Each structure stands twice: as C-alpha cells, then as structure tokens.
C-alpha cells in the first residue's frame, strides 16, 4: 500500500467536513476489509482516509424502533448482526446470511455501513436488505436524507452517494408475516465471493404470493430487482409450475456479467434454478 494520511474525527459532523465532494482519493473507512483489498491491488491509492472508529459507539447500536422496525447503526460489525438477539427475532434471514458471509475474522471487523456504501455487487447484505425493503439514513454537509436501499446503487461499485455523504443507519421494516430467504452460489470454495446471490421476500395470502421482491446480486453489475419474475409470482400459488415460470422469467430478464466466478450464461442458468430454491427456502424456513 502507498502512504496516505489517516484522520480520526470524533464526531459525524467533523467526519463529513474532512471528506471532499470533488476528491476521489479521499474516502471514509469503517472496517477497511474491502477498501484494503482495493489498496493492496493498487486500484485505490488514497491521499487521505477518514477513519470512523472514534465516532463508533453512538453509531454501532442495533435497536427495535417504531413498532418492530430494526434500526442498525452503520458502524455495527457484521458479527453484531450475526449474534444480536433482536436481529435473530425480527429478521432471522439477516442472521442466517451472516453465517456464510466471508469468515469470522472479516465479520468481526467489517461494518454494515461499509458493506452497503462500497457498492460491490458481490456483497451479501445489499441484496438481502433490499429484498427486506430497508431504508438508509445519510448524513451530508448541509442536510440529512433517507432513501430506499434499492435506490442507492447506480452501477458497478457505484452509488448515488456524494463523496462527502455517510450512511449512518439502515432501518428494516418489520416482516409482518412476510417470508424471506437469501441463497448464494459460490463456484470455487465455500467461503468465496459468490457467482450469484438471490434474495426474495413476499407475503402469502390465501395460498398465493403477494407483493414479491426478487433481488439479484453478484451475477449483475449492481443489485437488481427482477421485475418480470416478480410479476410472474404475484398472485400465483407457489407451486412447481409457478416457480419454474418465475425462474425462466428471471433468466430471460437478467443482464448477467462474466467474471472469475462464472460466465454470463452460467450465471443465467444458476438464477433459473436458484430463484426457485430461494422461494422454497423462504416457504420452509418461515413456516
């Protein structure tokens, strides 16, 4: 890694002021596990890193708010999500997703806010939280704003955040009986980055699927909803024929990318199969 300056603000306001909307070599760092990979590869050579550790305690809490919504501070570690009793109770799919996310050491250090802001389509939290309808809170120099996580991603490693904005929290609405699951496929080793991630959530009414969310990651340039697959599931009973149609619809609409984890056609076929498995898993695990 090349030399740089590291500053350690003690308040959110100070952190934002140390960032620069025009300067791509200045970036915030939370756990640093993803950023350091970029720095070691030489694709990111910072002049300044704004370390967020000294403002951590007030932004690392996980709490239940507003009638069952889960508010997760952006500086919470992935290990906190994995072991938190409220996460297990209110959003078990999130806790389950942690078990296969990288490894114990990375989860001990990586932060929720970093995992969302990094914009890496191979990460697990963005698709899961998108399918759960999560909203993010953002702090900037002039004002704070909120948006659906779904609206954050604009391209490969790209988000709509300004360079001097920070995600401060993510709020996950209560499941209210909705079913949810996340499945991912790794093509080399069990704990490798995935070839495909599929997150689903839906309500069941009178034996039919209502308001489904189908979210794909890793195979695509960014976290992407599969609208045609969702329309196929909407109002249908989750039988084999429906799931096959939905898998086919997703395979048809997905714009998959080739990379070291698999070719575009391979990932398309994975999606055809794994969408069905994701819906079945959601039905099983929340029965």
């Amino acid at each position, binding site marked *: 890694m090349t030399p740089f300056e590291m500053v350690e603000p003690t308040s959110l306001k100070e952190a934002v002021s140390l960032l620069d909307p025009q300067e791509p070599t200045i970036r915030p760092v939370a756990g640093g596990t993803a950023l350091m990979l970029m720095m070691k590869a030489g694709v990111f050579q910072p002049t300044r890193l704004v370390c967020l550790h000294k403002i951590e305690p007030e932004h690392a809490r996980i709490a239940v708010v507003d009638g069952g919504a889960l508010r997760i501070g952006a500086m919470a570690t992935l290990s906190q999500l994995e072991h938190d009793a409220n996460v297990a109770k209110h959003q078990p799919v999130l806790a389950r997703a942690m*078990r296969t996310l990288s490894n114990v050491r990375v989860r001990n250090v990586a932060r929720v806010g970093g995992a969302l802001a990094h914009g890496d389509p191979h990460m697990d939290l963005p698709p899961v939280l998108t399918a759960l309808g999560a909203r993010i809170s953002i702090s900037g120099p002039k004002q704070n704003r909120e948006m659906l996580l779904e609206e954050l991603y604009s391209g490969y490693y790209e988000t709509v955040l300004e360079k001097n904005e920070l995600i401060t929290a993510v709020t996950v609405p209560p499941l209210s009986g909705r079913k949810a699951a996340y499945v991912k496929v790794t093509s080399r080793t069990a704990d490798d980055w995935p070839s495909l991630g599929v997150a689903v959530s839906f309500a069941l009414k009178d034996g039919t699927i209502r308001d489904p969310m189908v979210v794909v990651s890793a195979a695509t340039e960014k976290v992407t909803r599969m609208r045609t697959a969702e329309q196929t599931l909407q109002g249908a009973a989750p039988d084999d024929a429906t799931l096959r149609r939905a898998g086919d619809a997703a395979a048809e609409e997905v714009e998959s990318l080739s990379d070291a984890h698999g070719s575009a056609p391979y990932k398309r076929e994975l999606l055809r199969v794994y969408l069905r498995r994701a819906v079945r898993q959601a039905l099983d695990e929340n029965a």
Partner: protein
Amino acid sequence: MNARAINFTLNGEPVSTAIEPHRNLVELLQRFDLFGARESCGQGLCGCCTVLVDGKAVSGCLYFAVWVDGKSVTTVEALDADGQLSPVQQAFIDAGAFQCGYCTPGFILMSHQLLKEHPNPSDDDIRHYLSGNLCRCAAYPEIIEAVKMAAKATA
C-alpha cells in the same frame, strides 16, 4: 514519513512504537520480532495472519496497524508464554494436525476463539468456524480431531 505514535498492550505487556498509517498489523508485529502471524493470501481468506485484538480474531493483513492504539493485541506467541503449551497447541501435536506448519498459528488462534464460543463444538461448528482458514497440506481431518481433543481436555 508521517509515522504515528501508538501505545498498546502486546501479549500482556504495554508497548509503544511509531508506525505509518499504510502499514498493516502483520508488519507491526514483525517489528517486535513476532513472526507467528504471516501474511499469506493478503486478502483475509486464508487465516495465516490471525491475531486477536481486544479478544476478537482479526485478519492482521486487513487491519491497519495504527488501529491497535489503545487496544490489547494477542498473538500465537502468548499461548505458551508460561512455558506450557496451551491445550489447543498440545492437541494439534497429539493429533498430528499439520504437515508444513505454515497455517498452524492461525488455526490454533482461531481454534481458541472457537472453543471460547462453542466449548463443546460439533463437527459442523468446527468446519463452519474454521472455513476461513486454509491448510494447503489438507490436514483438515486431523485439525478437526485436534479441536475436539482440545475441547475434551479443557472440559
């Protein structure tokens, strides 16, 4: 350039040094002649660089050295500091849980963490917890056996 003064506890002893922000924790430990944590894959995947910071396992290769300021750092070298191998170390020897030994310090520190969280781990617990540690000699069956032996020895 721009080295920063840091103070931390290293294997129980308070220490001070100065280090640049772009150095990682493995590089810092080498300055203290501690070579148990090795940077191998450099990507947090293999576990050879495992170090405990405030009692939690981290990948030393993906952890900025300056971040240990004010914290407590434990390396594999602390485990036999009293002249006695830890139960995990002894179990690795008894089970023959290594060949070349390069990955062993990482496996041993992770196994200590594993046994703290799961005093009586199942095979699945062990496989899952150690999935982020790679042994290129593939001594995995013996490693799992060693963890179970250590669990028994400390029960």
